[in-house]
C-alpha cells in the first residue's frame, strides 16, 4: 500500500546540506529509543539482524550439505511432527525442520527485502532525480511510464512476471522490483521538484556548479529522507508480497528456507485432522509469527524514522 500512502501530501523536509555531525547520530539514536514503539521496532529488527548473522551457528546445516538454504529433512514421511527436542518448532510434511527454516529464512527475508528495495530505490532515485531536475519531455515520459506500471494491480503484475520467468526467488525479486520502482521514482521526483527552486540550489547554479554536482551534493541529500522512510516501511511490505506469491505457488521452491514457503505448507492443515482442528498449529504459527514480527518491526521503525525526520509531524506520533 505504499502507493496509497504516498499520496498523502507532505511538505519537503528541510535539512541543511551538511555532513551530519557525531552529535547528530547520538541525537538520532536518542529520538529512536525515546518512544516505546520505535524502541520496540529497533529492538525487533536488531534481533532479526542478529539471527540472520548467526544463522550458521543457531541452525548449522548437516555435514557436506550443498546448499544451506535448502532445509534438511529426516526422511520423507508425509505428516508433520509436533515440536520436540530434535525439532524445536516441529516439522512440515516431508519432514522439513521448521526451526531451521525460520532461522535461515531470516537471511532470505533480508536478502529479498534489501535487493528489491535497494534496486527499486536506485532505479527510482536515478530516474526520479533526472526527471524532476530536467523536467520537460523527460519528466512527461517518465510519469507516463510510471502511470503505466501503476495502472496494474501490483500482485497480478508480479504473478504474471513470475509465471513467465519461472518459479524461483530471483524471479520473484525481479518481479517485485518491476512492481516497486515506480513508487520511488514518483516520490523522489516530487521531492526534487519542490527542492529544485530553493535558494541554495539557485546559489549553487549561480556559482556555476555542474548539474551532476548540484543533484548529488545539494538536491539528493535534501530529498532522500521521505524516500528512506518509505523504503524502511517497504522492507516489510516486500516480504508480505513475497509470502503472498509463495501462497499462490510462485516463489521459492519447496524446501527452501523462506517464511512464505513454509507458511504455505500449512495451507492444507488449517483444518487439521478429525477431532483436533489445531493439530498442526505449528506449521502456520512459527513462520507466520516470523513474518508478522519482521513486518511489524519495519513498520514501527519506518514510523519512527518518519517522526524523527519530519519536523512537521514531530510530536504528533
Amino acid at each position, binding site marked *: *500500500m505504499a*502507493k*496509497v*500512502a504516498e*499520496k*498523502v*501530501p507532505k511538505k519537503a523536509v528541510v535539512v541543511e546540506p551538511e555532513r551530519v555531525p557525531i552529535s547528530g547520530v547520538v541525537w538520532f539514536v536518542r529520538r529512536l529509543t525515546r518512544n516505546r*514503539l520505535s524502541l520496540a521496532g529497533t529492538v525487533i529488527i536488531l534481533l532479526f539482524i542478529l539471527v540472520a548473522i548467526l544463522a550458521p551457528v543457531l541452525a548449522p546445516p548437516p555435514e557436506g550439505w550443498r546448499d544451506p538454504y535448502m532445509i534438511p529433512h529426516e526422511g520423507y514421511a508425509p505428516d508433520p511432527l509436533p515440536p520436540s527436542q530434535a525439532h524445536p518448532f516441529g516439522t512440515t510434511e516431508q519432514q522439513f525442520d521448521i526451526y531451521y527454516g525460520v532461522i535461515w529464512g531470516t537471511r532470505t527475508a533480508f536478502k529479498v527485502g534489501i535487493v528489491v528495495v535497494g534496486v527499486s530505490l536506485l532505479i527510482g532515485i536515478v530516474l526520479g532525480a533526472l526527471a524532476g531536475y530536467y523536467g520537460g519531455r523527460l519528466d512527461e515520459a517518465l510519469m*507516463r*511510464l510510471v*502511470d*503505466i*506500471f*501503476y*495502472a*496494474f*494491480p*501490483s*500482485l*497480478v503484475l508480479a*504473478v*504474471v*512476471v513470475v*509465471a*513467465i*520467468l519461472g518459479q524461483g526467488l530471483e524471479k520473484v525479486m525481479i518481479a517485485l522490483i518491476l512492481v516497486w520502482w515506480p513508487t520511488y521514482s514518483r516520490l523522489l521526483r516530487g521531492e526534487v521538484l519542490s527542492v529544485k527552486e530553493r535558494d541554495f540550489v539557485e546559489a549553487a547554479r549561480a556559482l556555476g556548479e555542474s548539474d551532476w554536482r548540484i543533484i548529488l551534493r545539494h538536491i539528493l541529500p535534501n530529498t532522500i529522507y521521505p524516500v528512506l522512510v518509505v523504503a524502511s516501511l517497504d522492507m*516489510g511490505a516486500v516480504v*508480505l508480497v513475497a*509470502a*503472498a506469491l509463495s*501462497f*499462490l*505457488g*510462485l516463489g521459492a521452491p519447496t524446501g527452501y528456507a523462506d517464511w*512464505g514457503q513454509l*507458511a504455505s505448507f*500449512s*495451507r492444507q492443515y*488449517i*483444518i487439521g485432522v478429525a477431532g483436533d*482442528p489445531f493439530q498442526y498449529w505449528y506449521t*502456520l504459527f512459527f513462520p*507466520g509469527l516470523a*513474518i*508478522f514480527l519482521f*513486518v*511489524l518491526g519495519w*513498520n*514501527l521503525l519506518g*514510523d519512527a524514522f518518519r517522526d524523527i525526520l519530519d519536523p*512537521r*509531524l514531530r510530536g*504528533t*506520533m
Partner: protein
Amino acid sequence: MTAYIARRLVLLPIVAFGVTLLIFILLQLLSPAMRAALFVTDPRQLQALHEIIKTYQLDAPFHIQYWNWMKAVLTGNWGWSETARMPVLQAIKAFFPNTFELALFSFIPILLVGIWLGTLSAVHRDRIIDHVSRFFGISGYSLPTFIWGLFLLMLFYGHFRWFPPGRLSLEASLYVNSPEFRRFTGLLTVDALLNGQFWIFVDALRHLVLPVLTLTVHDTALLVRITRSSMLEVLRQDYVRTARSKGLAEPVVINKHARKNALIPVITLSSLLFVGLLGGVVITETVFEYPGIGRWGAAAALHLDIPAVAGFALFFATLTVLGNLVADILYAYVDPRIRLR
C-alpha cells in the same frame, strides 16, 4: 480545471494501451510452444503441439500478434479466456460485479471504522484507547492477508460453521440462476432486495462476512493511522485553539472544525483506496473461493492465459487511471491551495 481533466482523459487510452503493450512484451518471453501448451492438458497431445501453434497463430511476429489483438479489442472482441472457459469480455462482466460488491462492502467499514478509530485515537492521544488502536493498526498492517483469511475460514467455517466460503449457498445459487430472478445491477445483495427475496440478501451477506473481514484489516489499519496523524496535526492548528478558547464544547470543536480539514487527505485517498481494493482482492478471493475478478486474474496469469491477462490488464488500467483522476479531482476540489495549479 476542465482543461486539466480533459488532458488526463486524453492520456487515458495511452496509458491503458501502454499497460497492454507492457504485458505483451513480457509475454514475448514465452516461446510459442509454451503458449500453445495452454491448450494441451495431457502429454499424449504433445505431438499436436505444432498444429495448435498453427491453429492459433502463436508463432506470428510480435507486432502482428499485438496488432491483431488490438484490432479485435477495438471491435469488441477481447478474445477467449481458457481459464474462464468463456470470452474475456463475458468473464469480466461475470466476475467484476462480485468484486465490486466485495469492495463496496469493505470500503464502507474501512472508512467508518478507520475514521472513527483514528479520530478517537487522536483526540484521546496517549491514553489506553490510543495505544490499543495503534496496536491494532500496526498489527493489521503487518499480518499477511492469506494467513489471516485462512485462520478466519478455519474458525468461523471449520469450527463454528457460521460463514461458508463461496458466493452463495446451494439453494440461493439455484434460485438466482433460475429465470425467476431478475438481475438489475449485478450486485447480488442489491438485486436480492430488488427481487424481494430477503433470504437471498441475507445469504449473500453471510458469504461476504469473512472476505470482508479479511480484506478490511489491512486498509482499516492504514486509514486509522492516516486519520490519526492528520487529525493530530489539525488539532494543533491555531484555529482549533481559538475555537477552544472561545469556549466551544469539545465535541463541537472536533466535529465541526477539526474533522473536516483532517479528512482532506482521507477523502482524496478514498478513490485510490477503492481501486486498490479492487486490485488487492486476489488473495482474499482465492482463499474464500469467491468468484471475483481477482481470482480469475491470478489464475489467468498462473496459466499464462494470454487473452485473459491482456484483457484484464486493459480493464484494470482503465479503472485505475479513472480512479486516479477522481482522486486528483477530489483533491483539487477539496484543497483550494492546489486548485490553481
